[in-house]
């Protein structure tokens, strides 16, 4: 996974609360068993003038010229709620988004961000709104910096906000670690756990003959 350290970029406000993963990428845009080829479907319901079409809706924030090169989304509360589809994060990432700043995140979406090198930054609603207002004055030059080492969001106007992220997800993002590789290093501990558990809860360990017959 790609490492994340510091990013200074154009930020686009999409401040509505409960922005769901169906809106981030509608089902009809998930056309193959793949983690790629999804960015064209990002926000398809809003980004294009017609369902299934590709003519850009000029009123949608990401289509406005001043928001060209957007790599940070400013969101509302419960960002990424709804369907667990990781395609939402894959589509955001492929489009170029590397951080989402919002008051709160739906838990599955939050985890999906961590596993794909997208930084989910929790920040109080009033601060996100203030940041969005500042960005909108001149999006191309009013850039936002997300510094994962310092755990801060700052602006060229000198505003700075510290955010919290647990050590484990922060390390995963900073180092670009693969969680499976990390966990496989714990094989002996996992095997020992399973051996003990199999004695205590044998009914958990299904015999495949039970269903292959």
């Amino acid at each position, binding site marked *: 996974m790609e490492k994340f350290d510091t990013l200074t970029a154009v930020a686009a406000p999409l*401040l*509505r*609360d*409960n922005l*769901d993963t*169906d*809106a981030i990428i*509608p*089902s*009809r845009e998930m*056309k*193959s*068993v*793949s*983690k790629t080829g999804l960015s064209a479907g990002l926000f398809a*319901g809003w980004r294009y003038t017609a*369902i299934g079409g590709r003519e850009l809706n000029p009123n949608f924030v990401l289509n406005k010229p001043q928001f060209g090169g957007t790599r940070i989304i400013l969101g*509302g*509360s*419960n960002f990424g*709620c*709804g*369907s*667990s*589809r*990781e395609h939402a*994060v894959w589509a955001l990432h492929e489009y170029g988004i590397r951080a989402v700043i919002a008051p*709160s995140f*739906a*838990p*599955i979406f939050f*985890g*999906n961000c961590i*596993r794909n090198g997208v930084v989910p930054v929790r920040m109080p609603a009033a601060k996100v709104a203030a940041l969005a207002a500042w960005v909108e004055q001149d999006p191309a030059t009013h850039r936002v910096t997300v510094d994962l080492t310092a755990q801060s969001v700052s602006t060229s106007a000198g505003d700075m906000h510290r955010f919290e992220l*647990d*050590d*484990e*997800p922060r390390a995963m993002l900073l180092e670009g670690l693969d*969680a*499976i590789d*990390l*966990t*496989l290093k*714990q094989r002996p*501990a*996992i095997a020992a*756990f*399973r051996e003990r*558990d199999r004695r*205590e*809860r*044998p*009914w*958990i*360990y*299904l015999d*495949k003959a*039970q*269903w*292959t017959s």
Partner: protein
Amino acid sequence: MPRTLFDKLWAQHEVMSLGGSVSLIAIDRIFLHERTGSVALKSLQEAGRAVVDPGRVFCTMDHIVDTLPGRGDETRVPGGKAFIVETREAAAEAGIRVFDVRDPQQGIVHVISPELAIVLPGATVVCPDSHTCTQGAVGALAWGIGSTEAEHALATGTLRVDRPKTMRVRFEGRLAPGVTAKDLTLALISRHGSVGGNGYAVEYAGSAVRDLDIEARLTLCNMATEFSAFTGMIAPDQKTFDYLQGRQYAPKGEDWERAVAHWRTLVTEEGASFDQEIVIEVGELAPMITWGTSPQHAVPVTGVVPSLEASGTPREAYDRALQYMGLESGQPLAELKIGAAFIGSCTNSRISDLRRAASILKGRKVAEGVRAICVPGSMTVKRQAEAEGLDQVFRDAGFEWRESGCSMCFFAGGESFGARERVVSSTNRNFESRQGPETRTHIASPETVAASAIAGHLADVRGLAGVTPATGAAGAAANATAGRG
């Protein structure tokens, strides 16, 4: 120190601490479906990694598969057939049990898992599907994950999990006839918001929850994700054990006795503390219906579209919701004419749901101009309903009677409702364009959907003949018959 149910489940599955609040948690059951499980299996195989214990992994076809009679692999979902075929192939290669398109046990993951006793009390269950929390209803720790996390669970039998805080929601008192588990969850979310459960593992408790049959408990836990919770769960009790005993994947013989003895310990102890507690008195609750575009936008079906102040929603979101739904503040919900009615989904498609809806529909007709659809949650539910003649009740009333799957809860099968069409639906999400581009969804219980389909407008089911309490005999009978393997 007295411990909560969640504390016990966490401790029993904690392989090791990974520092801070993150632990390595052993996973007992993994479920996959063709929409998000397919990509996990494929990616795992491409990385050259094996499924660590395929005997504890299951896969179903529910999210893309067609629900029209006579279906096969073809579907109107763009590229849909490839998802079905590739899932089948990847699952076969991995050696995992697939409930395939024509399997007599096929169905919606969160319907078939309890129906076949794949989920068990005290088990950890994950699925790349947000409604996995449904399965917490039998006392499991069950939560939705992404596809990458599913790969991790498949490859290691574990997940790295940030420990959530704990919340108990107590529903106290007795439900009035016509008021159901669906109304409990909508009441909770409408009062405490769609972010109210964010960061918490929620235990549902209280006398009203103990009174619910298992299928109603599954409905209650189903929408923990709409509360933004990590999961929902209910302590297992005798009803749970009676429900599971004899089902296909349930422990048998001596194992069963040992298991039940263990499961009886899976309760929150007296005096255990939660990070947050909520109490809701249920006696006064009415059937609920949503008016807006978030599950928190719910009011009693006898109510009106709330004012901005009463809505608990910021102005911009409130205006947007009203505009999308084509409503005005103060408008009575019960006067809204509908174009369609849908009974189905992992929330409300089990045999007891269909029985209750059928008891409303018996001898009645769907109003002219209303398209009504019933999609049983599993082929087992469908067969049971047909054995009881419920399919005929639905058909006679004017409902389409489908094969099982997620169907028009969203885009499954590639079908949608119309633009600006008003739909009353027993599903879980009323998001913009969820059931079709610009479709206006009102979510409610199956009985409210049935009553509205007959009336041709949103309607209060109370007062119609055929209304039975959700906790009544119909539910108990369901437990006794459906899904024995």
